[in-house]
């Protein structure tokens, strides 16, 4: 294949985009692309920032053992090259059509039967999310439904009917017309993915690099140190859509499969920087369930399916949700270039507001997390205006080790959302060390929070609320540890 092209499957046919022939940028979003080609306006824009799900599409991709997995994704935050070697399924593909009749997909039929559409503008996105549930064989209980649909806003229905529709559609999942053609799709995708050469898309205003291996990625990083690194693109694409931020060079590492893995050794876990938040969420459920309150309420499924652990850390946002728990877990960030590799404590890696210790020719490749300390107590909580799909107003993550006498032997106490970076409450920690772990100690500690933080008022909340809640979260932590102690 010529390297100025990408190929994917759309409408069951191979779709090729050759940048020596087209005028739009490689970083055009999938939503913009769909709405510009004939017959695909069913996919809607409701916000262009990942918050409404009206643009939801489903991507079918090959797994390592050559099966297809189906993922619901916000097309407004996906750059076109990310489609390469995948099957793009849009709302127009769900029903089967003859010249005179339309046979609805069970998911569509359920929405019609439960009166789950009113104005209909959110409906294609809702249908695609339910279709995602259908294809991943999710049991339609309330938890799974909320988990799969919290990325879809509907202003008309009030959601009850949508919940009914999801239940009806996914109660008995049968093979559908997509199942029938899976073998052909798999063969086609294998063919497209046969070449392991890096793809370089060059447009007169933009160079878009799509390496397939870590080696290629590092070489390209060395060759184009100015290129913007993109992985899940959920952050970069929002900036492109909302502020017209423009990137002359993009290094998209989302096709590098080597950095998507989670490897378990005797002493630690090695999380690839390209590991999706959704996979990381499952990892947390299994290994550090105390942090599930944070990962379970991270964005929406559509975002978690593509957003990465590396992207979250490299954003270095004061409200980046993974950072507090990674500090608590004493995680290390592994970076690499073509010539060397470094290990940096996560606390040192984040050097300031949206700034990180990453050298010019390096990429973050892994996060190393030591195994859990079963003698310690972990706790976390995320507070946001809305329960789901909302960025933290503030968050807390802690690890506490108590002596036999009930005094604090060790503690790491981290808050997100209280300062320009995620930060440890050092004076609180120092105060607590060696003290009896009692309510009165905690109450005294709470008074010290203002020594560590002077939070601001902004669109999400006020200083007063942040401070009050910061203290309350410490109380929550206390009660949670107490609970565990008592149950022992």
């Amino acid at each position, binding site marked *: 294949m010529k390297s100025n092209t990408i190929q994917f499957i759309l409408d069951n046919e191979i779709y090729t985009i050759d940048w020596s022939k087209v005028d739009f940028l490689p970083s055009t979003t999938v939503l913009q692309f769909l*709405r510009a080609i*004939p017959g695909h*306006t069913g996919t*809607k*824009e*409701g*916000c*262009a*920032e990942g*918050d*409404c799900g*009206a643009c939801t599409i489903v991507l079918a991709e090959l797994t390592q053992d050559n099966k297809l997995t189906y993922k619901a994704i916000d097309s407004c935050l996906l750059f076109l090259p990310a489609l390469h070697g995948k099957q793009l399924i849009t*709302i*127009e593909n*769900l029903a089967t059509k003859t010249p005179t009749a339309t046979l*609805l997909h069970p998911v*569509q039929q359920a*929405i*019609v039967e439960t*009166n789950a*559409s*009113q*104005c*209909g*503008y*959110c*409906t*294609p996105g809702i249908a695609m999310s339910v279709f995602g549930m259908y294809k991943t064989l999710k049991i339609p209980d309330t938890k799974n439904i909320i988990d799969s*649909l*919290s990325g879809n*806003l509907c*202003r*008309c*229905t*009030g*959601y*009850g*009917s*949508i*919940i009914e529709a999801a239940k009806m559609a996914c109660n008995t999942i049968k093979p559908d017309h997509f199942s029938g053609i899976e073998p052909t799709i798999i063969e086609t995708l294998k063919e497209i993915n046969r070449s392991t050469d890096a793809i370089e898309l060059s447009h007169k205003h933009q160079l878009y690099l799509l390496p397939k291996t870590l080696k290629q990625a590092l070489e390209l990083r060395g060759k184009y140190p100015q290129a913007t690194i993109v992985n899940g693109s959920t952050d970069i694409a929002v900036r492109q859509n*909302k502020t*017209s931020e423009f990137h002359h060079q993009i290094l998209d590492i989302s096709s590098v499969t080597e950095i998507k893995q989670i490897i378990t050794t005797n002493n630690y876990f090695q999380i690839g920087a390209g590991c999706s938040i959704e996979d990381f969420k499952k990892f947390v459920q299994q290994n550090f369930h105390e942090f599930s309150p944070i990962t379970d309420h991270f964005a929406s499924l559509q975002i978690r399916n593509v957003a990465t652990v590396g992207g979250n850390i490299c954003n270095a946002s004061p409200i980046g949700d993974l950072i507090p728990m990674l500090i608590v877990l004493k995680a290390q960030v592994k970076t690499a270039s073509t010539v060397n590799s470094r290990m940096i404590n996560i606390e040192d890696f984040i050097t300031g507001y949206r700034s990180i210790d990453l050298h010019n020719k390096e990429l973050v490749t892994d996060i190393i997390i030591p195994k859990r300390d079963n003698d310690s107590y972990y706790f976390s909580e995320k*507070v946001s*205006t*809305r*329960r*789901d*799909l909302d*960025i933290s*107003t503030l968050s807390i993550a802690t690890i506490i080790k108590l002596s036999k006498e009930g005094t604090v032997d060790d503690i790491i106490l981290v808050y997100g959302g209280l300062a320009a970076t995620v930060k440890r409450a050092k004076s609180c920690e120092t105060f607590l060390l060696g003290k009896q772990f009692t309510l009165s100690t905690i109450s005294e500690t709470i008074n010290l929070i203002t020594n560590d933080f002077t939070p601001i008022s902004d*669109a*999400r*909340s006020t200083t*007063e*609320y942040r401070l*009050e*809640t910061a203290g*309350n979260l410490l*109380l*929550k932590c206390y009660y949670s540890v107490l609970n565990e102690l008592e149950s022992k």
Partner: protein
Amino acid sequence: MNNSETIFLPHESAISHVTGEASYVSDIQLRNNLLWGQVYFSPVAHATIKSYELTEALKIDGIVDILDFTRIPGINQLNTHMHDEPCLAGDKVTFIGQAIFLIAAKDRETALKAAKKIHIEFEQLEAIFTIENAMAKRNNLAPSRRIETGNPDKALESSKYRLKGRLETGAQEHWYLETQSALCVPGENRNMTVFASTQNPSETQNVVAEVLGLQSNQVICEVKRMGGGFGGKETQANPIAVWAALLADATRQPVLMQLSRDEDQKITGKRHPFLSKYEIGFDENGIITAYIVDLHGNSGSSFDLSIPILERAMYHADNSYFIENMRVTGTMWKTNLPSNTAFRGFGGPQGMAVIENAIDSIARFLKKDAAEIRFKNFYQTQTKNLTHYGQLVNNNRLSRLWDQLIKSSDYFERRKEIEKFNHSNNLIKKGLALTPVKFGISFTTAFLNQAGALVLVYKDGSVMVNHGGTEMGQGLHTKILHIAAKELGISKDNIIISPTNTSKVPNSSATAASSGTDLNGMAVKDAIRTIKKRLKPLAIKMLSKMNPTVNTGRIIFKNDRIYSKSNPEISISFAELAKQAHLEQISLSATGYYGTPNIYFDREKGKGKPFHYYAFGMAVSEVELDILTGNTRIIRTDILHDAGKSIHPEIDKGQIMGAFMQGVGWCTTEVIRWDAKGNLLNCSPDTYKIPGIGDFPLNYKAELLKNANNPNAIHQSKAIGEPPFMLALSVWLAIKDAISSVADHTKEPDFSLPASKEVVLLSIKKLKESL
């Protein structure tokens, strides 16, 4: 034969919705030459425009034209009545987001690039954003209004107990999924076709005509459907249509304009924030003896619909309660914010929240259950049935609703359980509340209560129905389809509801005030009656020809057949009748019209009959509150609502659920803040949070009141769009109840609306400190 009348079809567009085929303005695909229209908005709230320079911007490749106010061919006005909203600012701007220039470009990126090259110099003026500030500056929009009954001052004086209060209710962004959009296609002789997402195509047509300097007959406005409206497209869909039309007129090319989400949130008006002060008198049983309330609304920069909204707030200050001595005054305050506008409930929620909060305080004061106090004060049927503005509350269903809901929700049982729970839990508290709704149906501007229709029967027997109402998801077209099918006696498959088009039905009112089906349904029925009247003699002729002895006394149209009541075995099909009518030169199309009778109001006296009838509803909600974070969760909601004899129960239940959840958003997570310069801080879905699927009550049950025919509306039905919005006040007050339990209900908690996590947490903090 199956009686087709009792089969309710899903939303007439349901299949198009789920296949993605349903088309909205920005989905219309034109062949070529389509330009993108972009507005240059004022970045400052109040300033004079000293100078500006467009030449740099015009030089950019792909820019076709940039218009300023001097390029407007007609009148530079968006408000055809009040003339207080310039279409493009000339010498002065009065809010952030006001349009100053219009850019036509090959695409959006190019237009945004050009916008950055526009140089403009302002001289900043002092700006007002809050009601308090406007009061201090005496900046009222119009003189205060007043409605009074009995002798409130004296009655308050002699009341056994009195409580004083103050309540702030917040703004709310409509957040229709489809942002404001319009596509304008220029035609011959400067005629213009406007495809708009507007609730009021006739007004859009008129404003476009005025600004372009055309007559109404030169402009056609068509609305296929909207991706949500909720009042936000009643007046505020006009500007974008006019802007696109100006650019299309200037460039002679079609122009599409759609606001980005953030633009839409920043520049369009919201639900009016209110600040209300009240004093309420009552006796030891909780019977309200006097109520004096001052309602103050923030109108934003212009009139828009602020005065009718204020009126509705005043009409609903009583909610469901008979109050013998009452005075409500209302004032709208002018500020430098985008003009606030219609939003589901139209002032009703703001008026009701105050009395509901007051009753809640009375209950706490008397240590009684708030639901019982509510019940005791309900309007009665024989006496105590006159509102403060002098309208009789007819067909009052409050006590029926109460009886059924109290039982079905297990209210008193659960009250006890919750009390127990709260006594044994310190970190999680529960709260419970019942609230009623009585909502007046009609436009309070009497002449607006009219509608037109045009029904076309084709000679194959298929029918196209045109009416002046617009479809925004509320199911109006589906209901009209059911009405037309019933009236014509033909199956729904043979009827299509056409897109709303001003060239078919002229001078329609906005689809608003919950009145879409009431008004347009009647107009369609009227048109069909005319056609049937013309067809009946022909039917008699045809039937008699088939059998001369047929009794032609009463002709029935049913199940696609036409027959005489006494000889149903002899019949003709509707298609045969239509075909024969055509051959016999009988007209197969007719217009229909309806005007609601007997609606009037004397603003001087503050008395009259502003409403055709009332809709009633009631809800019980239970919430759980995490007192350490202020987070709340709805555990259970039970709703019983009076929808008359429902034309379509599933659609009505859908409206109830949707309105309720939208109300929940207003009451809980939808926080709006402005900074000191008037910038909206929550100007994107990133920070503005409408309810998501996880906010739906864990347990939800809504029923329609049975045997509830409404003699005043089409097919005995009732309007449904707005009333259930206010049922969400049950959630709001359940949260207050949970907060209050922190101090064992001994103290009145600080409270406002929305009960955001901040409001809740800081209220708890204060309660704890006072203990």
